[in-house]
C-alpha cells in the first residue's frame, strides 16, 4: 500500500466502526497513523466526523413517526407465500434433493444389510452365472430331483449333493456341475408351477456360508430372488426370477413342497 492509496481509503474510515471496517480500510488507517502528514489529516477528518455525526444524531424524528410501525402489517397469506418462496430457493432445493438421495441410499443400504449373511456375495454370483447362461450348458436329464443325488455321485464323485426332500418329487429338465472359485456347485433346472426354478447344491465351507438355524434365508439379487438353507455343512439354494413375496409363497406352496401321493398298484 502506498501513501496515495492509504490517504484515499482513509476517507471511508469511521472511528466508531469497532473493527467492522473493511480490511483494506484498516490497513490504510494503520499506514496513515505511522505517516506524519497522513496522520495529521486523519486526525482532522476524525475531528470533523465526530462533530457531524453528533449533529446528525441530535436530529430528533417527529413523534408521529414511530406510530407508523403499529400500522405495519404483513400481507394476507404472507406466511404461505414466504414458505413457498423459501422452498423455491435453489440452495434449499439442492439441500432437499441431497437429503432425499441420502435417505434413499440409507434405505437401500439397510435393505442390502438385511439380505446379507456370510458367503452372500459368493452365492449371489451363482445367480449371476445362471443369468448369463445360454441353456446349452445343461445336460438334459428328465427325472425326479430327488434321484439326482446318486447321479451327481456316480458322474462327478460329489457326495451328499441332494436337493431338499420337500422338492424331491419335482421333475427336472436338466442339470450340470460347474466350478466357482475352484469349488463344485451342482445345479438343477426344474419347472414348478409358474416358476422356472434353479436348485444349487454346494458345501457351505467352500464359500464361507454361515447361516443361523436351518430356516430358509431369502435374499434378492437384481431381478432374481434366492433362498438358502444350510444343514450339516451342505447348502441348498433355490433361485428364480421374482421377488421376496414370490419366494415366500413358493416355499409355503403345498403343491410344490408336498409330493403327490403315490398311486396304489394292483399288485399291492
Amino acid at each position: 500500500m502506498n501513501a496515495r492509496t492509504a490517504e484515499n481509503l482513509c476517507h471511508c474510515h469511521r472511528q466508531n466502526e469497532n473493527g467492522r471496517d473493511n480490511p483494506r480500510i484498516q490497513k490504510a488507517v494503520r499506514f496513515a497513523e505511522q505517516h506524519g502528514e497522513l496522520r495529521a489529516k486523519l486526525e482532522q477528518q476524525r475531528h470533523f466526523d465526530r462533530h457531524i455525526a453528533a449533529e446528525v444524531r441530535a436530529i430528533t424524528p417527529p413523534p408521529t413517526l414511530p406510530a407508523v410501525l403499529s400500522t405495519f402489517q404483513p400481507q394476507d397469506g404472507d406466511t404461505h407465500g414466504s414458505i413457498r418462496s423459501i422452498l423455491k430457493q435453489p440452495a434449499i432445493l439442492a439441500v432437499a434433493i441431497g437429503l432425499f438421495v441420502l435417505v434413499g441410499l440409507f434405505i437401500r443400504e439397510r435393505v442390502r444389510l438385511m439380505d446379507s449373511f456370510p458367503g452372500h456375495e459368493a452365492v449371489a454370483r451363482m445367480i449371476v452365472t445362471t443369468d448369463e447362461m445360454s441353456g446349452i450348458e445343461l445336460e438334459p436329464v428328465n427325472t425326479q430331483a430327488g434321484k439326482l443325488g446318486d447321479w451327481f455321485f456316480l458322474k462327478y464323485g460329489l457326495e451328499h449333493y441332494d436337493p431338499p426332500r420337500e422338492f424331491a418329487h419335482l421333475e427336472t429338465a436338466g442339470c450340470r456341475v460347474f466350478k466357482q472359485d475352484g469349488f463344485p456347485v451342482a445345479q438343477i433346472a426344474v419347472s414348478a408351477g409358474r416358476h422356472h426354478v434353479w436348485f444349487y447344491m454346494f458345501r457351505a465351507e467352500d464359500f464361507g456360508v454361515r447361516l443361523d438355524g436351518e430356516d430358509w434365508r431369502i435374499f434378492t439379487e437384481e431381478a432374481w430372488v434366492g433362498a438358502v438353507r444350510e444343514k450339516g455343512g451342505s447348502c441348498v439354494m433355490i433361485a428364480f426370477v421374482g421377488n421376496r413375496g414370490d419366494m415366500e409363497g413358493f416355499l409355503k406352496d403345498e403343491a410344490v413342497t408336498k409330493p403327490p401321493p403315490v398311486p396304489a398298484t394292483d399288485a399291492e
Partner: protein
Amino acid sequence: MHSYVPSAETLHELYRFALLLTAAPETAERAVMDSLTGAAGPLAQLRCAHGRNRWLAAEVRRRCLASETAGINNDIATSRVESRHDIPDVSQQFASLPEPQRTALALFYVNLFDAEEIAQFLHLNLDQLAALLAAGRTELQRRRADGSAAGAVAPTRRV
C-alpha cells in the same frame, strides 16, 4: 416464519437520512412513511437485515429525490427557512450538496451501513466511494465555513 417489522432505531436513521437529503422535515417524514406503506411484501422476500435496510433506504432516497425534482423542497425550504428555525443546520448544509456526494455522506453519517455497503448501494467500488466522500467532505466543510444557512435557500439540485 415471522414477518419483518423495522425497529424504531432503523426508522429514526431512515428519517435522519431523508432529512439530510431534503432539509424538509415534512417531506422527510412523508418519504419514510410512504416507503413503509406497502413494504411488507417486498421486505418479506428479503432474508437478511442488510437487504431490508438497503431496500428501505433506496425507497426513501427515491422519494426524496423525486420530491426534489418536483420542486416541492424548494417551496418548503424557501418558506420554512424564514418561518421555521427548527430545521437543523446540518441538514440544510447536506441538502445543498450535489448528488451522489449528498447520499454518500448522508449514509456515511447515519448508522445504517458500513463503507462497503454504502459503495454497493451507490454501485461504486471502495476507491470510488472514498474519492466521493473526500469531495463531499471538502464541500461540506466549505459550506459550514461560509455559514451555509444561505445554502438551504439556494435552489437544490434537480436530478
